[in-house]
């Protein structure tokens, strides 16, 4: 029942789209009739083109996300360890946080070439900060009283992190990770500006250049549906793995799932 509810709004939007197209309420060039989009989908699907693009993009987004997650996580931990490092890096990180990755593409090409590396770099630039900042804030806002318990038991810093800080910071880290994952997907377009010949972002860019709104819409739907499905699967697994249900005991609820 709960599952069904989530599809009411999309269904309504679809109906409006259909009727509106039939009645010619909007420009068919920009928002083509659903049937045209379905046709484009069927063709792309049958030819295996869509599948190829999806695998490539999935690979890029997941890899970029994983790398960002590892880096952001380690950096957040290091900075929470050392106030010195925090002061040393905060200015430059804050600077980086405001730079549009798109503007850096020439520099990325110079450093990483036009292969996978520079595409990954764009994805990482878009993904890094939500994970980093949410993890850092989760760690920093941890209940001092519980940390004291660990200190008294002579825990090493490592064990204090593992046994006290992380369990508390998990809600924050999860928010960061989910945001980050969303941005990984979104960054595909930016990433695949750089000399791509496959991937969903490339497919959309190419369709745009060739004025094929039906393909653009197929691309948008594929990215959106695949993204939210991946997100759902990924975090159901994580939750299961982390015995997340225990969090419920604390009054925390798992949003949007």
């Amino acid at each position, binding site marked *: 029942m709960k599952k069904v509810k989530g599809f009411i709004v999309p269904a309504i939007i679809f109906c409006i789209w259909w009727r509106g197209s039939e009645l010619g309420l909007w420009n068919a060039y*920009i928002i083509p009739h659903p049937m045209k989009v379905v046709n484009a989908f069927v063709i792309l699907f049958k030819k295996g083109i869509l599948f190829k693009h999806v695998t490539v993009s999935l690979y890029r987004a997941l890899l970029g996300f994983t790398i960002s997650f590892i880096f952001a996580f380690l950096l957040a931990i290091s900075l929470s360890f050392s106030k010195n490092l925090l002061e040393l890096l905060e200015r430059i990180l804050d600077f980086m946080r405001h730079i549009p990755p798109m503007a850096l*593409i020439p520099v990325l*090409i110079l450093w990483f070439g*036009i292969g996978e590396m520079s595409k990954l770099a764009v994805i990482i630039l878009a993904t890094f900060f939500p994970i980093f900042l949410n993890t850092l804030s989760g760690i920093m806002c941890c209940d001092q009283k519980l940390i004291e318990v660990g200190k008294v038991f002579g825990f090493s810093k490592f064990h204090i992190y593992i046994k006290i800080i992380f369990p508390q910071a998990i809600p924050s880290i999860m928010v960061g990770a989910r945001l980050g994952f969303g941005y990984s997907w979104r960054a595909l377009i930016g990433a695949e500006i750089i000399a791509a010949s496959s991937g969903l972002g*490339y497919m959309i860019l190419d369709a745009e*250049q060739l*004025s094929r*709104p039906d393909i653009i819409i197929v691309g948008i739907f594929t990215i959106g549906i695949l993204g939210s499905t991946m997100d759902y699967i990924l975090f159901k697994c994580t939750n299961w793995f982390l015995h997340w249900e225990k969090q419920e005991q604390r009054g925390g609820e798992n949003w949007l799932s």
Partner: protein
Amino acid sequence: NRTNEETSASSVQSQVETINISYVTAPLNVPSIIEKNENLFEKEFGDIKINFPEITQGSKMTEAIATEDLDFCNALGGTSAIIGKVNGVDLKIVGIYSRAPKGFTIMTNDKNIQSVKDLKGKKIAGPKGTILHQLLIAAGNEANVSINDMKFIQMDIGNGVSSMMSGNVDAALVAGPAVIKAQEGGAHILRNGEGLLDATIVIGVRAGFLKEHPDLVEKYMHVHENALKIMEENEEKMVKMVAEETGVSVEEVKAMYPWYDFNPMITEKDIKELEKTQDFLFDNDMIPEKIELKTLLIEK
């Protein structure tokens, strides 16, 4: 259909309040720069407000035409015009903006590459589905190098030049001021469009607008011709204006200006060029079908 007629009928009576003309300065759109800087349209159209949205990408311009956010494309690549029209954008060509075979080039930063022949097996970056792409294929054909023997990499001009300068690709398709900049950076031109294609850039108008206000379209063309006249009369002053606007030095503007033929008349040759362009697009799977080019041109 009936609704369409009704709306057009009602808007015939309504006075035009604003006209939206896209403003594109690249590669070296001298008439547009003059028109805007000298307020030529404002002088001609009187009370009507003129907007100059800076939509530079061809596909974005056709989109804006489709949504009626744009009435004129001051300089639209022939390829974009055809792609848009094939996909259902109601667009007409009212004149030729420029022909500049020399302004569109294949460049390389590699001393070992001396002719198009050497591009066999090499990586070439450039914008897909554009005049430059067409140029590459045509140049390849001329030198007996099939496009399949080259590694074509889709990129816009800026990123393509960056890739070439950093050695990530062997050659790039370049047009406009970037040619000069790349030359300054050490790259050299392998081949330009001379003898291969005309690099036709057209003036587009929204078909609906044309139908309702043919008089305004005529006035537009009049301004355009006027701008060309002003250019010839005050070359020194105008070159300076262009240099300022494009960030290119006066000497460079003077060097590039002769590459461009701004005669707005649509000649038989231009139509042939457009046919050639359409063939190129169709042969390379970038349009699903061909159209009768006449439907794209304004009826005389």
